């Protein structure tokens, strides 16, 4: 039964009793005191259910107030509905039921809030830790970025220096290439000249061989002449001996003629003529011998000079042969050197091309390094912003942790059904 129905029934019963009493009085017209007693009796009679009901309502209100107070105080451990009021009858029961529902919902919400707060606290704590780690990593990244930036600057300078060096190297290689080309031309010319020199030296050697043969023939002739001269000397010695013998014989004949006196005078004249002839012969032979000696000495000196000249010529021929060999070697070396110089020139050109490519690549590297430097600066700025954001996140996370702690503290002020003791 609803409360207004109850109040209406009570009011109507009171009114009915009062009317009944009034009707009875009017009909019986009793004394005043009866009137008074009847009125008071009916008033009292009508007050009995009212008092009972008020009592019941009071208890219910008291209980609801008690529960409401406890719920208001945050103690949600007791259920609002009792076993007697398991079945809702009136608005008070309905109110109790709703209060119970509110308690249960409130408790669930608080459970959820507590769980969420705890989770939020732990998550915030983890977030704080994570933010600290990220902050540390970010600082590390920032430092690395600064180092990278410095390294990029150094790299940029080194790249510039390398580029300059390679450009200088390219110029040097170009000069080397030009020098190598000049050297190749010079060595080719030298090779031609050396070949010409070798041919001329070969011709000179051939001529020298002819000269040698002539000198050898001349030497043989001189030897033959010397031998013949010796033969002449021997013949002259024989003539000299014969002349001396003749001279001796003539002297002896003269002596004999002188000893013969006048008889030997004619013989003495003949002997004297013979002696003079022998003397002339002897003088001539002596002159011839002197001339032969001079000729022999001259021929010996000539032979000696020819031998000396032959020796010098032989040395000269050996030296000329050595010169030819040296010229051949020079030609071979110069040809080889020319080939090598051409190879060097070609390699130098390739090196120049490579150096140009290297310069281009280094310029690209420089550009990339500059971009890297810019990117590093941007990353550094981003890292700084990230650090600031992380600081804010850390701050917010700390605040959230604090808030979660406060909320948990506040939520823990509510006593739920699984809280015991306190």
């Amino acid at each position, binding site marked *: 039964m609803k409360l207004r129905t109850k109040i209406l029934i009570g009011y109507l019963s009171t009114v009915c009793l009062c009317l009944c009493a009034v009707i009875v009085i009017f009909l019986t017209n009793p004394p005043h005191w009866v009137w008074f007693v009847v009125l008071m009796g009916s008033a009292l009679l009508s007050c009995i259910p009212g008092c009972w009901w008020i009592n019941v309502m009071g208890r219910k209100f008291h209980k609801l107030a008690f529960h409401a107070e406890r719920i208001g105080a945050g103690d949600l451990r007791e259920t609002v509905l009792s076993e007697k009021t398991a079945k809702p009858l009136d608005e008070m029961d309905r109110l109790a039921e709703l209060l119970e529902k509110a308690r249960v919902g409130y408790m669930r919400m608080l459970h959820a809030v507590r769980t969420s707060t705890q989770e939020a606290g732990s998550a915030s704590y983890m977030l704080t830790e994570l933010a600290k780690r990220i902050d540390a990593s970010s600082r590390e990244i920032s430092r690395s970025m600064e180092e990278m930036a410095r390294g990029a600057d150094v790299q940029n300078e080194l790249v510039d220096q390398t580029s300059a060096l390679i450009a200088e190297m390219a110029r040097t290689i170009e000069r080397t290439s030009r020098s190598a080309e000049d050297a190749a031309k010079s060595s080719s010319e030298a090779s031609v000249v050396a070949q010409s020199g070798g041919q001329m030296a070969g011709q000179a050697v051939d001529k020298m061989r002819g000269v040698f043969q002539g000198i050898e023939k001349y030497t043989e002739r001189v030897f033959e002449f010397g031998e013949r001269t010796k033969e002449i000397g021997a013949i002259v010695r024989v003539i000299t001996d014969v002349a001396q013998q003749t001279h*001796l014989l003539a002297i*002896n004949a003269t*002596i004999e003629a002188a000893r013969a006196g006048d008889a030997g005078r004619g013989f003495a004249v003949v002997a004297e003529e013979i002696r003079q002839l022998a003397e002339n012969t002897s003088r001539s032979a002596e002159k011839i011998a002197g001339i032969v000696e001079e000729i022999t000495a001259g021929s010996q000196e000539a032979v000696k000079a020819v031998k000396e000249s032959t020796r010098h010529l032989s040395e000269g021929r050996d030296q000329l042969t050595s010169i030819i060999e040296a010229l051949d070697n020079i030609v071979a070396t110069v040809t080889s050197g020319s080939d090598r110089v051409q190879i060097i020139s070609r390699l130098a050109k390739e090196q120049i091309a490579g150096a140009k490519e290297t310069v281009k690549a280094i310029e690209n590297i420089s550009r990339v390094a500059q971009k890297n430097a810019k990117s590093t600066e941007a990353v550094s700025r981003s890292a700084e912003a990230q650090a600031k954001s992380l600081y804010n996140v850390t701050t917010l996370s700390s605040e959230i942790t604090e808030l979660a702690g406060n909320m948990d503290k506040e939520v823990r002020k509510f006593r739920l059904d699984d809280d015991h003791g306190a």
Partner: protein
Amino acid sequence: MAHNGETVTTTRMEPGEFGKKALILKVGNERYGLLLDNVVEVFETNTDLMCIPGAPAWILGLANNHGRVVPVVSLGVFWELETGSRSNHIVLVECEDESYGLAVDRIESMDTVSAEGPEVRGRRRCWHHGALLELIDPTYLTKELFARLDSEQSHAQVDGHGAA
């Protein structure tokens, strides 16, 4: 050989004597003329001379002339002149039954000389082809040689007795 001491007699060469044949010799740096009066012949020794032990230095040795052995005297050593290379021509001299050879540096020629000036100790100056030479008298030379030989032999004997 006979020894005649200091008083030697020679065949004197008179001044302005003509038609005398002389053998022109060279001993050392000097030229001499030897009169042909006592010269037998000039011969040649192709072998070494045979040495005579104990003989004076100016006797070079013994030479063989057609089987006849003759002593050979070096005029350069005898006259103590600086002699050059000796020729192998020996002048055979025969004087007073004595024969000996004279070794000279060179026999230049045989010519007719005219003696000039007085003879001194068997020598006389004369002109020959515009040059002065000493004309030697073989007889005086022979005596001089034998006198020197006797003198040296007597000295040697005195020295030998003194030593004994």
